[in-house]
């Protein structure tokens, strides 16, 4: 692509500094073809011209031997001025010795006297102007403005450059972050947080320069370092931890490091840092160590997760993802009544076999891929409700999971309405489960979305209630239709009095809100009886059935139909 600057008609300003009129005029005549040329008789005049604010020069052509102030003096002064250093200088000389000396003083290039042919001279000037402009753009964009370190993109690009000529040198990928950094911003303000990141950035630059290492701020409070292998990075840890301790005057705000030593060159550069980050994340909450090395066990986990990420789409396409259904029964009367079901995802991987949802759901929730899974489930469920409706003449409402990321999707409502329409269903036949912690995280947005969905007719279940941090005040204002008691409370309620009290409390809240409470994870008759005594209306769990494929679920529908016939 042709660069914009090559197409622009605006001429850049060039300053020719020479005491000889003949030289000035010859050079000016050549350069004026492409540049707006100004002249100075000596270096002192040149400095005056350059100090004017009205004109920005793209290039200086400098004679060396001049009266009043010579070219060498000019170059020395330029070295101490940041704005002047950004303007390239081409020195005009006829002595070899001066060429070397001026290049050492920061000249970008030299042209010899007598001058070369005009075309050659112009080309050399153009090249230098372009080179410096590129350099300037890079300088302006390569640094993160908060920390002063490289941005992530440039960091990876510089590593690629380094790797071109030194792939045989053992090197390490290091990732570190500050535990609970979001609280720093929240409690101390963003300026304070930025100031802290700037201090860390500047300390790192000083420390890393002699270590032959580079660093970037990859994201918020996460830093990446690429270094020639060393036995210990304690000095870096001590410096960063020292800054934190100085800032907060406390010792418990902790920096944690993940390290992948001697990175494998067969793996992509980005993955070196993904792995170091996996090691860093592994360190979460572990106060006994601040450095975690990427090891075989972590590698196996990492590769497993990478496989899942890679294979998700084909799992959807090949229907390796399967929706299972677990029945929910209303236990208010003498005989339990089938009221609805919950859709639960299962993955039969062609090579890895059955994959536990606990292995992939949190992974995909973390990276946003859960949306793909959710959309798949929503579609499957809508089709299934329709099929059962057609086969048995009754609707078995099924609840599906709505993840946090779905809430942020502006298309959520449209997507749901569309799939209901495609299957001839109404929102009343479809239930949505939102986990309690999602309510706490993004409350205003979530309430707005949920209100809209309820207005359309969807019923909303709050999942895992009791595991999050809802305030009692908040609960009364939440737009929900059903409370689901967190499974762990139900499982432990007979072993632990506190869990029993919690279940009672949640059942009481549901009663207060005049909405049904669903107990999940019910496995025994005695659990069922306890829950029934508490006033819990709906039960889900192995006591009735484990989650089953659609075909097996039909038995429950048929039994329900039989129960109704016998009424």
């Amino acid at each position, binding site marked *: 692509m042709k660069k914009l600057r090559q197409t622009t008609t605006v001429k850049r300003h060039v300053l020719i500094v020479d005491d000889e009129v*003949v030289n000035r*005029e*010859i050079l000016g005549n*050549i350069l004026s073809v492409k540049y707006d040329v100004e002249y100075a008789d000596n270096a002192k005049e040149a400095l005056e011209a350059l100090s004017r604010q009205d004109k920005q020069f793209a290039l200086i052509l400098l004679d060396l*031997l001049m009266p009043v102030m010579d070219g060498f003096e000019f170059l020395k002064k330029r070295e101490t001025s940041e704005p002047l250093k950004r303007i390239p200088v081409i020195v005009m000389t*006829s002595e070899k010795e001066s060429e070397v000396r001026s290049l050492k003083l920061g000249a970008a290039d030299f042209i010899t006297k*007598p001058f070369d042919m005009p075309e050659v001279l112009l080309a050399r000037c153009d090249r230098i102007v372009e080179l410096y402009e590129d350099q300037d753009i890079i300088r302006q964009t390569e640094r993160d403005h908060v920390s002063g370190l490289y941005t992530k993109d440039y960091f990876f690009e510089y590593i690629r450059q380094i790797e071109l000529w030194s792939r045989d040198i053992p090197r390490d990928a290091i990732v570190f972050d500050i535990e609970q950094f979001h609280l720093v911003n929240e409690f101390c303000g963003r300026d304070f947080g930025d100031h802290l990141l700037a201090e860390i950035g500047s300390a790192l630059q000083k420390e890393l320069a002699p270590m032959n290492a580079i660093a970037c701020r990859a994201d918020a409070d996460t830093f990446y370092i690429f270094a020639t292998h060393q036995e210990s990075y304690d000095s870096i840890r001590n410096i960063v931890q020292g800054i934190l301790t100085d800032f907060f005057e406390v010792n418990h705000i902790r920096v944690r490091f993940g390290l992948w030593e001697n990175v494998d060159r067969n793996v992509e550069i980005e993955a070196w840092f993904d792995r170091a980050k996996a090691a860093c994340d592994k360190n979460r909450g572990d106060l006994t160590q601040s450095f975690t090395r990427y090891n075989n066990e972590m590698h196996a986990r990492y590769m497993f997760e990478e496989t899942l990420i890679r294979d998700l789409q084909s799992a959807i396409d090949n229907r390796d993802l399967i929706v299972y259904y677990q029945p929910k029964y209303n236990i208010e009367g003498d005989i339990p009544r089938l009221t609805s079901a919950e859709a639960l995802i299962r993955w039969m991987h062609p090579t890895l076999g059955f994959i536990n949802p606990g292995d992939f759901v949190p992974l995909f929730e973390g990276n946003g891929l859960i949306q793909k899974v959710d959309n798949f489930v929503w579609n499957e469920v809508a089709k299934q409700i329709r099929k059962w409706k057609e086969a048995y003449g009754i609707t078995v409402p099924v609840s599906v999971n709505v993840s946090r990321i779905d809430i942020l999707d502006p298309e959520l409502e449209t997507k749901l309405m569309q799939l209901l329409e495609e299957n001839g269903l109404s929102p009343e036949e479809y239930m949505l489960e939102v986990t309690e912690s999602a309510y706490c995280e993004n409350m205003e947005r979530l309430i707005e979305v949920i209100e809209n969905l309820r207005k359309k007719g969807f019923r909303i279940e709050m999942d895992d209630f009791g595991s999050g941090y809802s305030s009692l005040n908040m609960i009364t204002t939440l737009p929900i239709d059903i409370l689901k008691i967190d499974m762990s409370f139900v499982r432990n309620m007979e072993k632990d009095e506190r869990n029993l009290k919690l279940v009672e409390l949640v059942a009481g809240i549901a009663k207060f809100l005049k909405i049904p409470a669903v107990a999940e994870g019910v496995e025994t008759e005695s659990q069922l009886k306890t829950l029934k005594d508490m006033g819990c209306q709906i039960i889900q769990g192995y006591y009735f059935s484990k989650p089953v494929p659609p075909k097996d679920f039909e038995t429950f529908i048929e039994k329900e139909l039989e129960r109704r016939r016998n009424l």
Partner: protein
Amino acid sequence: MITIEKLNTFGANTAEGLARCFGNEALYLKLVATIPGEANFDKLKDSLAAKDLKAAFEAAHALKGVLGNLSLTPLYTKVAEITELLRSGTDMDYSSLLADILDKKEVLGGLCKD
């Protein structure tokens, strides 16, 4: 008035000089016409008379650049020669070399006046 033909007879490499001026003959001839009045010839002469070799070198060096750019070969060659001798601070009798340079300058001056 100086012309390309006159400069050719003087021995200048006018093709090269013109090319350096991007073919601008008027500019080339205008610049050539300033040479006979170039103050550095006097500075060179006076500095040599005063045995100030550093000042003489500066004058010769400046002349060398200008003459080279205009491809005034006969003058350039002699000025380049004296510049190198002065650069190394050679203690010698410069009078004949200087006379030669000044003679050639006078010839050029004559061509410019005619």
